[in-house]
């Protein structure tokens, strides 16, 4: 039988454990059970101590947060970025346009898991743009107005993961595809449905990502009194990839993806994506049947990680797209590529990385509405280099610098797209960005 002194020492230990931090109140259950098994505490004393620890935990901030009983995991997070940006463009007449901006971006949300293998996510973002969450300081129609400072739903999705190999997502989601800024701006959160599958054979990991994205809705179909039938437009993506590890910590990942557009040729699908070009716009999505092949080779350089990466895209209907634009002679502008090298990874305080890549995009190779909005002003028919560097001020804060310089790929064609240098007659482009990033 335990002595009274032993018993009270144990009880005091449990109490101290519980009062030390809220989390320990939960953890001490196992310790109390051991004390019961050893006969140091009675069952009644054990439940008294456990209840008291819960009572103390209830008084802490963490103890006051209530989650529904169906929630099995809940996470709050986001990031904040402050940026200085310089853009300059020159047109074919040699005239220049510059833009200096101070900008901020805020994104915050939560993700959670509930019983029966379902999960969800929700994120609010500044700015209503599809390819940017930046807000330009002072751009409010008055000193520090708020009309440009709204928040919008950037992500809202529900998913089901019946096993670690299978994930199904519906809603407005993080891009489920392995891709690069050559084809997709990283800020785009597509709306629709996605399915992801993973499996392995030996050391080789395989994955399949499928996407059915609602590109634009036509509103009503079969409208009263109208002979024409309106149709929604869809972007479908099929990706199958593999990651092959080699000796010495090296690995190769290849992840080809095929994109097709549904209802792209209908004249009644949503403007401005319907199948018609203007001399200054290629926003329409007709004649796009694109394959993208992102490749990544990872290897160590001393104690730092290194990476050679490339992305290649080819539009099987690029010739038709060129013809439809009225330039059948330019049907060779149906491909795009990016190739580069990265050294290091800015993860912990004092870490840094640097990335250099070259990118060239044919005018008829890609969907202009999806490409990265910063690099080369969100335009195709551009080629140039990008240098990026990151320095980790801490594990949650980072300083980043991006410099880009590009020129029009073919001077006889416009530089289609939607950028901040407001001309498709963009001959040269310079970009400089300095960012402070904070993640929470």
């Amino acid at each position, binding site marked *: 039988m335990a002595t009274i002194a032993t018993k009270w020492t144990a009880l005091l230990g449990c109490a101290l454990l519980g009062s030390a931090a809220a989390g320990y109140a939960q953890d001490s259950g196992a310790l109390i059970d051991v004390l019961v098994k050893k006969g140091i505490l009675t069952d009644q004393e054990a*439940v008294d101590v456990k209840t008291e620890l819960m*009572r103390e935990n209830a008084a802490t901030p963490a103890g006051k947060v*209530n989650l529904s009983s169906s929630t099995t995991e809940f996470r709050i997070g986001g990031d904040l970025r402050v940026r200085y940006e310089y853009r300059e463009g020159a047109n074919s007449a040699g005239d220049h346009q510059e833009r200096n901006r101070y900008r901020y971006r805020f994104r915050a949300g939560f993700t959670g898991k509930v019983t029966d293998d379902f999960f969800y996510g929700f994120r609010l973002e500044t700015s209503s743009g599809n390819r940017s969450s930046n807000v330009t300081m002072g751009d409010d129609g008055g000193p520090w107005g708020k009309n440009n400072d709204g928040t919008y739903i950037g992500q809202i999705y529900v998913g089901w993961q019946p096993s670690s190999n299978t994930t199904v997502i519906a809603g407005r989601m993080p891009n489920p595809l392995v891709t690069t800024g050559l084809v997709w701006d990283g800020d785009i959160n597509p709306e629709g449905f996605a399915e992801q599958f993973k499996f392995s054979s030996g050391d080789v990991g395989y994955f399949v990502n499928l996407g059915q994205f609602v590109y634009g809705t036509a509103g009503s179909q079969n409208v009263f009194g109208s002979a024409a039938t309106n149709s929604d437009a869809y972007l479908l993506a099929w990706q199958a990839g593999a990651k092959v590890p080699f000796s010495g910590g090296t690995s190769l990942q290849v992840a080809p993806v095929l994109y097709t557009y549904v209802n792209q040729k209908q004249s009644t699908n949503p403007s401005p994506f319907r199948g018609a070009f203007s001399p200054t716009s290629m926003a329409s999505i007709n004649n796009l049947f694109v394959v993208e092949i992102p490749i990544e080779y990872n290897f160590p350089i001393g104690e730092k990680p290194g990476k050679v990466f490339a992305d290649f895209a080819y539009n099987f209907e690029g010739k038709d797209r060129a013809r439809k634009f009225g330039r059948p002679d330019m049907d060779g502008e149906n491909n795009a590529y990016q190739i580069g090298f990265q050294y290091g990874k800015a993860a912990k305080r004092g870490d840094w990385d640097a990335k250099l890549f070259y990118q060239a995009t044919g005018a008829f190779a890609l969907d202009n509405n999806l490409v990265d909005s910063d690099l080369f002003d969100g335009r195709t028919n551009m080629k140039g280099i990008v240098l990026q560097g990151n320095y980790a001020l801490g594990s949650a804060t980072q300083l980043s610098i991006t410099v880009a310089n590009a020129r029009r790929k073919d001077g006889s064609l416009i530089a289609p797209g939607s950028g901040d240098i407001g001309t498709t007659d963009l001959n040269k482009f310079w970009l400089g960005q300095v960012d402070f990033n904070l993640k929470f």
Partner: protein
Amino acid sequence: MKKALLTLTLALAAVSAAQAGKLVIKGSDTIGAKLVPMLAEDYKAQNPGTTFEIAAEGSTTGISAIIDGTADIGMASRPVKQLEVSSAAAKGVSMKPTIIAYDGIGVIVNAGNSVTSLTRKQVEQIFTGDITDWSALGGSPGKISVYTRNTSSGTYSEFKELAMKKRDYAKSSQKLAGNEQIASEVAKNPNGVGYVGLAYLNIPGIKVAAIDGAAPTVESVQAKKYPYARPLFYYTNGEPTGEAAKFVEFTLSKQGQDTVGKVGFVPAK
């Protein structure tokens, strides 16, 4: 006039005495269907004038009743949860548990079922729906019908904790209000399986499966050998006072603990 005042005073005293002698007890069906009514009868025999209001609709309802102040004693076949303690604290209520007995949750099958023993893994697989046919357990082929308690039941959540690694019940499982209903359904259904407390194991038409060789008995529960053993609780707002304190004391007395044993549970003392 003096006589009228005296009569009124005596009448008020009688009313208040009657009010003071009323105990509201809510919560666990496991405790409240048999044990507490028997204890109440014994208690009333010694304390004439005391009245009881007993509602056995699940442990969660008993704990909620203490938090809401609508019961003097809450019966629970599971420990209070952190969220409940937090809710109670927000209302100035201090949950005080008192172990009044021990129970073993017995896994029951139809008396005609050839399966007589199960492993803990098999029990988890049955109730989560990983195994759906008795042939996978060495029994005659037949689709397993799983009967569980409803979600307000302490046994429902304790069984998940003790036997199912906190996994969800099979989607096909049928939720029933009490131990007796589960025993009754399993007795009628040759492919039925369910769980009930020690006090409900002797119902005709069912038999108890040994778990990893251990049967739910007074001895195995006392020795903490049976894997699905658990304490049964009264919950009060702080240390019980007044009539509630007397009834808790009575439950833990030799006479009360004898009644615990007679009902089929394992005495706490």
